[in-house]
């Protein structure tokens, strides 16, 4: 059954069928091998119940809030702030790229949106500063990986809804790994700038300049703190936090007079369409997840990993390796939806902390955004930088390697993820 599901999925995805249709087709084939009469009841039931969750309502709200802040021009203020802080250093625009991604992460949470927004602004400027196009595009795509790791994170909300893990704990746990990844890319940029001999074209900003940039970007910088603190201190649920941040973005846009009715409508349309594409994948993945559980795949995997079950780190490494390769071939949301129910019982039985596992899976899935052949951020970066995708695929590997090293740190030092949740709990 599993082979039939995989072949059906792969053949159709390669032929350009939309992912959610491929998942439905694969599940229909899977039911043929199990009991086809079940399909008429289980397929619609699992599809509906897969998205019938109040926790998932947070996803459109965070997307909408991010769209509103982009429409209001708040996010462009973040780039100005990053520029005033690090733009004057040697290889300054590379640092600006990474630091802006860290700031963006707290507002947007979408790596693809981050790549698109930063790439169109920073890649041309980086080329003028002496960076190669492939490096500038690669750094833009890679640094955007910080987005889904630092809260708010759509992947973490999904993981939490699948495993009943606290979203607040996951959000807190993502902070240090996100900063670690950002730090790793800053070091990489430092080495590159030294090696190539890039000089900064920006003058050092005065203290007044930094304070002015900080003042204008403060509303966007406060957003992640509102989200995390309201959830962690138990004031609101993640979904309600999403609603609050939408209200916050709306009020800011109105007060700044930067949010017109047409911009509001466009933000709503973008949110509706993006939510539609994400939720149908979640719904369709739920059917395949049910089939995999029905076929007792988690039990088989647990039996296979039995010799290593005494060492949680080895189990995490093996699961990360599997996620990495599957993430290369699958879209991220569906990979998360399919792998989490299979991996979770295995990892928990081995003594892995569910919050730590959530962060590790999120980083693995996120790294897949820049790995060939399906890394969405690479495609976006290539498009906005106007370079061939094959050239991008060649130049992206050093960034993938840096991300993997950061991921190994996260796996080997669970306190990186678990420290903040333990402090606040």
């Amino acid at each position: 059954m599993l082979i039939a599901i995989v072949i059906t999925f792969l053949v159709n995805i390669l032929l350009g069928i939309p992912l959610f249709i491929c998942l439905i087709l694969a599940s229909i084939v899977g039911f043929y091998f199990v009991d086809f009469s079940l399909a008429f009841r289980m397929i619609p039931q699992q599809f509906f119940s897969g998205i019938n969750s109040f926790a998932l309502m947070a996803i459109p709200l965070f997307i909408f809030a991010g769209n509103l802040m982009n429409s209001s021009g708040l996010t462009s203020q973040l780039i100005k702030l990053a520029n005033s802080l690090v733009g004057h250093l040697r290889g300054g625009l590379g640092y600006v790229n990474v630091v802006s991604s860290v700031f963006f992460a707290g507002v947007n949470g979408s790596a693809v949106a981050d790549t698109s927004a930063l790439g169109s602004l920073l890649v041309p400027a980086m080329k003028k500063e002496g960076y190669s196009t492939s490096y500038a595009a690669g750094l833009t795509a890679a640094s955007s990986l910080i987005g889904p790791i630092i809260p708010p994170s759509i992947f973490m909300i999904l993981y939490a809804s699948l495993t009943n893990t606290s979203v607040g704990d996951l959000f807190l746990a993502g902070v240090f790994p996100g900063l670690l990844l950002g730090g790793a890319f800053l070091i990489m940029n430092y080495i590159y700038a030294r090696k190539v001999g890039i000089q900064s074209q920006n003058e050092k900003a005065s203290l007044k300049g930094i304070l002015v940039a900080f003042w204008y970007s403060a509303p966007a910088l406060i957003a992640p703190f509102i989200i995390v603190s309201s959830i962690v201190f138990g004031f609101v649920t993640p979904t309600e936090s999403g609603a609050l941040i939408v209200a916050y973005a709306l009020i800011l846009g109105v007060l700044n007079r930067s949010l017109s009715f047409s911009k509001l409508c466009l933000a709503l349309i973008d949110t509706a369409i993006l939510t539609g594409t994400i939720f149908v994948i979640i719904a369709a993945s739920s059917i395949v997840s049910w089939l995999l559980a029905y076929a007792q795949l988690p039990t088989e995997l647990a039996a296979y990993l039995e010799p290593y079950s005494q060492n949680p780190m080895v189990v995490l490494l093996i699961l990360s390796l599997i996620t990495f390769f599957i993430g290369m071939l699958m879209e991220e949301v569906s990979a998360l939806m399919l792998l989490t129910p299979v991996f979770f019982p295995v990892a928990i039985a081995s003594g892995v902390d569910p919050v730590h596992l959530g962060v590790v899976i999120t980083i693995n899935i996120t790294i897949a955004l820049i790995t060939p052949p399906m890394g969405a951020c690479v495609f976006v970066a290539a498009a906005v930088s106007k370079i061939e995708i094959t050239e991008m695929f060649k130049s992206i590997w050093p960034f993938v390697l840096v991300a993997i090293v950061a991921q190994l740190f996260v796996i080997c030092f669970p306190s990186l993820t678990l420290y903040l949740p333990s402090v606040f709990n």
Partner: protein
Amino acid sequence: MNLTFIRTTLYRLFLLTSVSILALNVLLILYSVFTRYILNHSPIWSDELSRYGIIASVMLAMSCAYVESKHMKVAFIESAVNVSIKRLIRLYQWFIVLAVALFFSYISTQYALSLSKFSSMSLGISKTIPMLSVPIGFGALFFMVLLQGPFPKSKQGAASC
């Protein structure tokens, strides 16, 4: 009245309905936050209504996203082959999406009708009502794909709205 007019009208209708439900849903969640934390009394039906609302919004947006080519897919083979094979692949894609949409619409209608005797916990409505958003969504997808045809000349962009 030509096919393009019908397609554009349907597209606008689905998108407008989806966006309206989404906007109302945001207001509903804000209202429930307000009532819970300011008035200390949250309506018990708001969670359920917002869940059903977002499902309805998503199901209608699904067909609009298809017309906009926004659904996630891989186009490696399509971009690497010659025109005649590309046309064959497009025909296959069109046929498969149509078939799946029709099949899903049929089985989810059957399933929704089978739930008519069950009521939802908070709203107290028949479970058939929220479940019907799935066959309606796939029905909408079916008609949009059918009207678009296997070889669409251009995307039905949001600009047309």
